[in-house]
């Protein structure tokens, strides 16, 4: 006779094994490692919350300390490989296989472990893709998560950095998995309930707050004139003519410059209310001046940002906040918002090839994708129209009958022709191809595919790939904005001129922009201190950004 509740029985016996360390749901932090040894089985799929920002650091340390004789061959499924302990488990033989999305801080070490064979790579995903697989074929048996506080019943408050937790916990809890939460404090009454106690099995109170990476703060003092020029081009050459109201900004100095140019340059162009009103965006401090100047209707966030809590609390008309007043973020829903509810993504990258494929991968660093490929892709399942979407669709395909012609999401890559260490942005062959060879991957890690990219903005101008009819035109539109890089100098000047006449390439002067006017004077805030002032003292920047 077939047994249909194996997983349930297994879960019950794991809970029983863990119960000896628990009083109710509560486990002392000294017993964290012993608890994990009790509830985890060799070969398990374990999700350790390494979100983009929030890290379940106590649980990461506890997991890295288990006896590899008892716990081994784990399959780690997690958004971010961020802490050293996330890789220690592989070096110690505790974990064997990995499926993940982002590894920025550990990009060099993870590359070494991948090349050296200590990690068996499942695949590198985007966040949303990984969350999706938690519900299909990568469901965690054990989830190790982080929350701000818990009550005696195990209800959790995840607060501003809620991030990935709901997506992780729902998949785990409803498929007979075990959920272990580390919390900063156990309290009598939570500010609000983000995760119901029914879904949580064990709670460990940590001796210090979980670590949060400050990722989305860009110092206005570091924004260069060239970045300001690209921002002016983007605003006048893309935001304005398409009328982009719903959007996502990738993090970077070019987009920070755009945010700081809204109350000044874009205001002078009469664009307030017509662009940049509804956002899927983390709480970028550089958007504060635009919010204070009345540009922004609302923002949904993937996560939070260090120092922004009080400002967010004071602006509930703008941000998603709970009845307790603090932010509620949700990476899964923000990713979906970026895919289906935004008309434009704009972000930076490290390399672009002649087809417009872009990548942030270099031969000795593996950073993963994070969420960019979601944001930077055309969502073909979209059905509702909007002006920018339809306009882009028409540019891409002017000949089809309008009722059968779907729109296109604007996917913009922005950057200077030469990046850090004078490395060219434009290359004939992406380093990602080399990496694919080294790691024997089916696909080269491309962040945004050329056929999704609609525009490329550099200091030399804007390439509108929607208006390019074939591969050749596309290649030369790219070469036409590639400046003095080898790719740029390899241009066919006649073809580039024809593309310019057609508007497929626009130079600053075609848009009435003088590069000498790209002055830091245009920035609504020129320093972190300015941002603090704009926020009325509510924004409290982390120490590394202070000069007072």
């Amino acid at each position, binding site marked *: 006779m077939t047994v249909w509740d194996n997983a349930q029985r297994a879960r019950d016996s794991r809970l029983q094994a863990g119960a000896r360390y628990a009083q109710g749901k509560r486990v002392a932090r000294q017993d964290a490692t012993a608890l994990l040894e009790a509830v985890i089985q060799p070969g398990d799929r374990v999700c350790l919350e390494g979100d983009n920002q929030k890290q379940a650091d106590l649980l990461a340390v506890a997991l890295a300390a288990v006896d590899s004789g008892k716990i081994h061959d784990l399959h780690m499924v997690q958004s971010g490989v961020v802490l050293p302990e996330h890789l220690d488990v592989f070096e110690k033989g505790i974990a064997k296989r990995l499926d993940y999305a982002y590894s920025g801080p550990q990009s060099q070490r993870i590359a070494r472990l991948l090349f050296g064979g200590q990690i068996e790579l499942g695949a590198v995903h985007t966040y949303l893709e990984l969350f999706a697989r938690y519900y299909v074929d990568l469901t965690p048996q054990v989830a190790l998560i982080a929350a701000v506080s818990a009550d005696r019943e195990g209800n959790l408050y995840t607060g501003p950095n809620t991030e990935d937790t709901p997506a992780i916990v729902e998949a785990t809890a409803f498929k007979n998995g075990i959920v272990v939460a580390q919390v900063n404090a156990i309290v009598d009454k939570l500010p609000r309930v983000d995760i119901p106690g029914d879904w949580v099995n064990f709670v460990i109170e940590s001796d210090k707050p979980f670590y949060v990476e400050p990722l989305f703060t860009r110092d206005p003092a570091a924004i*260069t*004139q*060239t970045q300001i020029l690209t921002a002016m081009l983007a605003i006048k050459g893309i935001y304005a003519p398409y009328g982009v109201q719903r959007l996502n900004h990738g993090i970077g100095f070019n987009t920070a410059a755009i945010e700081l140019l809204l109350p000044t340059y874009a205001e002078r162009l009469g664009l307030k209310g017509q662009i940049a009103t509804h956002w899927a965006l983390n709480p970028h401090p550089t958007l504060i001046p635009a919010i204070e100047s009345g540009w922004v209707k609302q923002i949904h966030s993937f996560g939070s940002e260090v120092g922004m809590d009080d400002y967010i609390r004071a602006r509930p008309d703008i941000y998603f906040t709970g009845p307790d007043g603090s932010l509620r973020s949700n990476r899964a829903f923000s990713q979906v918002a970026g895919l289906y509810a935004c008309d434009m993504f704009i972000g930076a990258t490290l390399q672009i090839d002649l087809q417009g494929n872009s990548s942030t991968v270099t031969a000795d660093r593996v950073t993963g994708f994070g969420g960019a490929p979601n944001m930077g892709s055309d969502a073909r399942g979209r059905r509702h129209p909007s002006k920018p979407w339809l306009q882009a669709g028409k540019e891409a395909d002017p000949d089809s009958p309008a009722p059968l012609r779907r729109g296109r999401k604007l996917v913009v890559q922005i950057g*200077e*022709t*030469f990046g850090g260490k*004078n490395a060219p942005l434009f290359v004939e062959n992406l380093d990602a191809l080399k990496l694919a060879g080294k790691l024997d991957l089916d696909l080269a890690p491309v962040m945004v595919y050329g056929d999704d990219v609609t525009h490329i903005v550099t*200091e030399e101008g804007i390439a509108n790939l929607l208006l390019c009819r074939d591969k050749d035109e596309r290649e030369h539109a790219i070469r036409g904005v590639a*400046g*003095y890089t080898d790719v740029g*100098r390899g241009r066919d000047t006649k073809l580039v001129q024809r593309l310019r006449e057609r508007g497929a390439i626009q130079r600053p002067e075609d848009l009435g922009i003088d*590069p*000498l006017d790209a002055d830091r004077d245009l920035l609504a805030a020129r320093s972190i201190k300015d941002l603090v002032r704009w926020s009325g003292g509510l924004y409290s920047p982390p120490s590394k950004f202070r000069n007072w």
Partner: protein
Amino acid sequence: MEQLNYRHVAAKRANGSKAQALVGVVASGNLEVLVERTLPDGECEVDIRTADEGFGKLWQAVVADFVERRSPGGLKLSINDGGARPDMIALRLAQAVRAVEGERS
């Protein structure tokens, strides 16, 4: 250190009457340009000192485009380079001409 020098014919004399101007600072990713009105109207010269060796072709292209766009006749531009990228170089050259032509720099 590498020393590069380019002499060009300029379409017309740079406007204004200021004898010299200075823009920029020698720092990482930056450069200074000292511009002096010391040459005949139809000539211009760009003299470069840089610690980043081997980029002669790049400088040549940037300078050639600059001369064509801005017609800096009569000007000698002397550069101390701190490892600036082409976009910064082009910007400073344009700022230098504007400064010596007497406009806001």
